[in-house]
């Protein structure tokens, strides 16, 4: 994508038009919606194209040395720029570990090793950094991963937001597991491991100064154990898994519908949402299906194994509120359709950029 002289070569983009609508980066490019996907599709993918990347899973899966032993490797990376750095239910530290652990886990891998990079702003209190590092160490112990390498950079005051963290992780694919966003099949049952929108609304509530009788807590957690249990119970019947982070359940289900070229139909009344999260969403004019989660997974499971997997999820401490929320259909391929409480149907589209609070 870059010419030898360093100037970006816009002419050689495979499809430059959709990007040229926004000649500069806007916040929506990082919002987990359509703008971000276009950046991947029209800029990163053409530039880096290779079979491992093209799958566009949460982690890339590959053989380190084909023919060398049975184990396949999964690799993933994620950056964390959340504000505030500390919030009810966690901090940027837990997020940085669990986010990468979960991306590996939903790819069917057992997370093993993490790297961590800190970008710190001049003047950032050391006590806060210590609290973040402590939270990371704790989260890594729970997730049974080792943080084996790292890097620290400091930028001048005003050039960062206190602390940014980037982690990358490597895991070993569980033997016999075959999951991918393109493997959902008509008839599959869609399960979610718990309540939706907790993390996003915990952050929004702090930012907007909303106070509730019981504060909304982030659901930030590592899902490797829950997913191991689900895979043990479901085996090959588990076709796809994903953790619905930025862009929420709606983006995740739309992505899987698109990758699998199948339709996803969900029942709005079956979606588990905490009353306080629901209330906060109503106040701010947001839809919980678009709000971020940091400790939830969505499973696409063949119908004969769905009850078994759901029972296992509910038996796990992180899956007590797990629910069956819909199914995959051969109709409306690539689309997510919800049946409303009124008995009508509506399409839930991928969001464009960030979810915008309404005026009134």
């Amino acid at each position, binding site marked *: 994508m870059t010419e030898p002289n360093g100037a970006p070569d816009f002419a050689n983009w495979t499809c430059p038009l959709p990007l040229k609508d926004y000649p500069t980066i806007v916040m929506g490019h990082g919002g987990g919606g359509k703008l971000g996907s276009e950046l991947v599709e029209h800029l990163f993918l053409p530039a880096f194209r290779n079979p491992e990347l093209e799958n566009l899973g949460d982690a890339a899966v590959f053989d380190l040395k084909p023919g060398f032993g049975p184990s396949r490797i999964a690799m993933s990376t994620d950056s964390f720029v959340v504000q505030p750095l500390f919030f009810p239910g966690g901090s940027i530290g837990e997020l940085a570990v669990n986010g990468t652990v979960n991306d590996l886990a939903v790819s069917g891998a057992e997370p093993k090793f993490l790297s961590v990079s800190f970008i710190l702003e001049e003047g950032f209190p050391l006590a806060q950094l210590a609290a973040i590092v402590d939270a990371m160490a704790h989260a890594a112990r729970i997730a049974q991963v080792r943080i084996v390498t790292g890097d620290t950079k400091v930028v001048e005051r005003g050039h960062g937001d206190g602390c940014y963290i980037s982690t990358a992780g490597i895991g070993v694919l569980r033997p016999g597991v075959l999951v991918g966003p393109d493997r959902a099949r008509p008839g599959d049952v869609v399960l979610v491991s718990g309540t939706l929108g907790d993390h996003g609304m915990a952050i929004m509530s702090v930012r907007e100064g909303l106070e509730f009788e019981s504060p909304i807590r982030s659901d930030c957690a590592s899902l490797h154990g829950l997913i191991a249990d689900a895979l043990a119970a479901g085996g090959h019947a588990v076709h796809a898994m994903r953790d619905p982070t930025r862009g929420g359940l709606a983006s995740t289900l739309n992505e899987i519908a698109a990758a699998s070229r199948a339709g996803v139909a969900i029942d709005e009344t079956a979606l588990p949402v905490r009353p306080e999260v629901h209330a906060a969403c109503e106040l701010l004019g947001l839809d919980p299906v678009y709000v971020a989660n940091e400790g939830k997974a969505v499973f696409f499971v063949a119908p004969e194994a769905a009850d078994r997997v759901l029972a296992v999820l509910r038996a796990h401490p992180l899956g007590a509120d797990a629910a069956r929320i819909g199914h995959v259909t051969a109709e409306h391929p690539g689309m997510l359709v919800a049946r409303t409480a009124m008995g009508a149907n*509506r399409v839930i589209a991928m969001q464009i950029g960030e979810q915008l*609070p309404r005026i009134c």
Partner: protein
Amino acid sequence: MKYLTEFRNGAIAQRMAREIQAIVTRPWKIMEVCGGQTHSIIKNGIDQMLPACVEMVHGPGCPVCVTPLELIDKALAIAAQPGVIFCSFGDMLRVPGTEADLFQIKGRGGDIRVVYSPLDAVEIAAKNPEKQVVFFGVGFETTAPANAMSVHVAKRRGLSNYSLLVSHVLVPPAIEAIMSAPGNQVQAFLAAGHVCSVMGYWEYPPLAEKFRIPIVVTGFEPLDLLDGIRRAVLQLESGRHEVENAYERVVRYDGNQAAQALLREVFDVTDRTWRGIGVIPRSGWRLSAAYRDFDAEERFQLSGIHTEESPLCHAGDVLRGAIKPAECPAFGKECTPRHPLGATMVSSEGACAAYYNYGRFLSAEQLAASGAGLTTRQAAGSRA
């Protein structure tokens, strides 16, 4: 949630829809003025539940959609200036101006902040005395009291670095304009509950009388909407044209007196341009003489604003209820939420975006096949 979940009961909604079916004998066209109501109707699929002959026409009540292009361009020009903190409700950031939107200005370095209340913008002004803080005060009577309060507070606190870019619009003159337009087909109105919670509904009886139309003050939840529609149909069927309040848990005849007093102090009635519709006489508010110092249009001398609407966009026809969004030739083609040509495609309250986001570009067959029991009439009514 109390006062919310009980108004979203699917079984009661089905029963109310059957009641409407039982009383209706002729085709009727009812306009919901408010964009919030349009959003709720489409999101919940209320229109899919109604009998074929009751048609909901979506009115011009989306504040984002009717804010004139010239004002959007002024907002972009102000927000791009150094030393300015430009505060706005979230929806306004993606509304296309002639050359850009506020998101792009932000991307180019403009200090643009999304706030939930104009009073937050006043606080920002207090904390940043070296900056000019401007709040984009748009909307109907619903958002006006908070905007009025912000300049009232700023004046009391002596914050000379705060100003309001105002484009307030009013519902009753819009109803008058729609009813007076040649070719009008609207036979009844659902008045916007939130507007009436501020203003009351004392302004409506003369309109009901003049145009012999039922006007029903209506809320936003599915059962509120169905009740409003049921009452409007009952009136139409029996030849009555009264003002009714179907949102009694929120709205009183006189409205909020304290808010109205503040509005009278801060604002004067003025002619306003409505995007896509044109100038409607005495249809909006501007800051009164006592608050003129807080008018961003006065404070920032802006020249060279040249506005140009997309020739493909039929937002005006949509806002007047003359066409449904899917009947616009650009709908879902040149114009999508990803690349909106007109404001009605931007806000979730805009009729075009509501239609697009909730799948009204799908064929009814596709939707019906998803297993959700659409009736044949909806199959015939929705467009591919």
